[in-house]
């Protein structure tokens, strides 16, 4: 079954036509990379998948996006429920001004979980999944701001994983990090694939080719090409894709 199925998606910021007729199908437990030059609409598309663009005034979407077969833009959909299913990691680490533990527990608490043993188990599990456990196990009650940027980003990943989403959206999760942290995050994405479907925006070509199964190339609001990653990087159909991945522009 398709976990994400976007059909004929058009999106507008007021008058600006930011996405033009996007069609993407994503299978379960795959990593999808979205690449393309700055301003081409990658983040915009990603934020459509958990309806984050609802927060911006004057936006409009046509077409449909199905997650696990349900149209997430149907009128009776509860956005908070959707976001529990489709988690998100942002470009810059954005931990809450709370302890490390409470950062990860947050999603569980707003979900109405009050069972402290369950919360504790889940928090530890999530931090372990985010490959952060060894570094923070002694300071779970310290402020999240005491961590390095790379650690903070992995904490944000742990936070997203804690509520057991089906899909994890990542918007350039390593762009603000040093090479070592970046490598750790890439490794982590590879691990997470077993349990989650991941859609990752990146403008790092090597990263896309290393971590993803399928790659979509966006250009000026259009999805120029969407195919297996190996194919995109070795034998792209479109001239524009080839130009971009060989670094002739972007």
């Amino acid at each position: 079954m398709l976990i994400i199925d976007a059909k004929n998606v058009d999106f507008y910021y007021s008058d600006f036509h930011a996405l033009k007729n996007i069609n993407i199908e994503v299978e379960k437990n795959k990593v999808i990379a979205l690449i393309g030059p700055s301003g081409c609409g990658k983040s915009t598309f990603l934020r459509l998948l958990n309806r984050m663009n609802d927060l911006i005034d004057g936006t409009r979407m046509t077409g449909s996006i199905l997650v696990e077969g349900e149209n997430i833009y149907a009128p009776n959909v509860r956005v908070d429920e959707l976001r529990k299913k489709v988690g998100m990691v942002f470009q810059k680490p954005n931990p809450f001004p709370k302890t490390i533990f409470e950062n990860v527990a947050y999603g569980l608490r707003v979900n109405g979980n009050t069972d402290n043993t369950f919360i504790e188990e889940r928090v530890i599990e999530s931090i372990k999944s985010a490959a952060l456990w060894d570094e923070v196990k002694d300071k779970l009650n310290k402020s999240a701001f005491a961590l390095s940027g790379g650690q903070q980003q992995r904490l944000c990943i742990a936070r997203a994983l804690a509520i057991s989403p089906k899909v994890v959206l990542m918007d350039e999760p390593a762009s603000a990090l040093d090479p070592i942290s970046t490598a750790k995050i890439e490794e982590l994405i590879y691990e997470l694939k077993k349990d989650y479907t991941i859609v990752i925006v990146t403008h790092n070509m090597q990263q896309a080719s290393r971590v993803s199964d399928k790659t979509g190339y966006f250009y000026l609001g259009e999805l120029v090409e969407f195919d297996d990653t190996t194919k995109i990087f070795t034998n792209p159909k479109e001239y524009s894709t080839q130009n971009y991945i060989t670094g002739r522009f972007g």
Partner: protein
Amino acid sequence: MKRFLEKFVEGALLISGSVTSITILLIIIFLFKEATGLFNSPVVEEGYVLAMNKSNPVKKLNSYQIKHIFDADITNWDEVGGKEEPIEVVRLSDLTNYYTEEELGADFENIPAKASELTASRPGIILFLPEQYIAKNFDGTLLSKETMQPGDFFGGTEWYPTASPSPQYGLLPLLLGTLWVSLGAILLSLPFGIAVSVYLAEIASMRIRNILKPLVELLAGIPSVVYGFFGLVVIVPFLQETFKLPVGETALAGSIVLGIMALPTIITVAEDAMRTVPRAIKEASLALGATHWQTIYRVIIPYSKSGITSAAVLGIGRAIGETMAVLMVTGNAAVIPHTLLEPVRTIPATIAAELGEAPVGSGHYEALFALGCILFLITLVISISIEFIGRKKY
């Protein structure tokens, strides 16, 4: 030439800066200098003396004791540290009970001698006389050099500056009145102010916000007499009706009026704090499936805690120093309040109401300055704590 001009401007700025600082400093020094005069002012009404029998072991009385002796609340010397001996209070007019008018003389020329004689003959006497009737060789203990003690002011439970023979300058009723009214004001306005600022910062659409925000700020510009007048004709009768009070002018009325006056400050400061919550953190919360309300009370309010605290403290600051409106609605009874439904009197209201009638340099006048110092110290503590809160960030 240009260099010279720059130096000149620099110098002018330096001078105006120092002049301002020095002026402020001088005002503070003046305030405290006048205030300390209180502790050199006599316990006994100016121009009068108190006299007691020489055998009486009590050689000192504070103003509180004197007042209660003359009010006949204290009737025995053992209550003020003396022997068991009934107190016999004698005022100038009472001398006719002991002596005939002939004995006192047609022009009262014998009063000094008779006063001395009376004091010497009656062990329990306390005599209250104008200074001029005290003979050179007066036979008794004179209480003329006694001055007000810090305890009379800081620990005094009565404010009665025109009491005779010993005026009462007790700080406590006024201080408590001020604190009660201000505390009540903040308890009323803080929840409401935070609710409004949450609404403005998070819920209201841009259009509504653009109408409401200036309206709230307009509230801050209304003169306080107008608030006082509003309180007097609306809130005071309302309270009197609802609580079936003998008078509606109560601490609660003051709190309500001050609460309304503090709202604009609280709303503006708290709303600004909430708007500084980074978008990234709000999005993080929403992306984890939190609803808008959960985001407000789990992320936005905790994140703007220090801003909200400054709002509260600024609101209190406004309330504590406010004079006019409070003067109009609190009933101005200088008694220690037990509930919010009693009349109280605040420090600023006291100063405003009494400074005009206190003779310059008198104990009363100096006591009002001492009140001013207390008010100054309270607001100083408040502004220091704002600094402190403002600096404390995550």
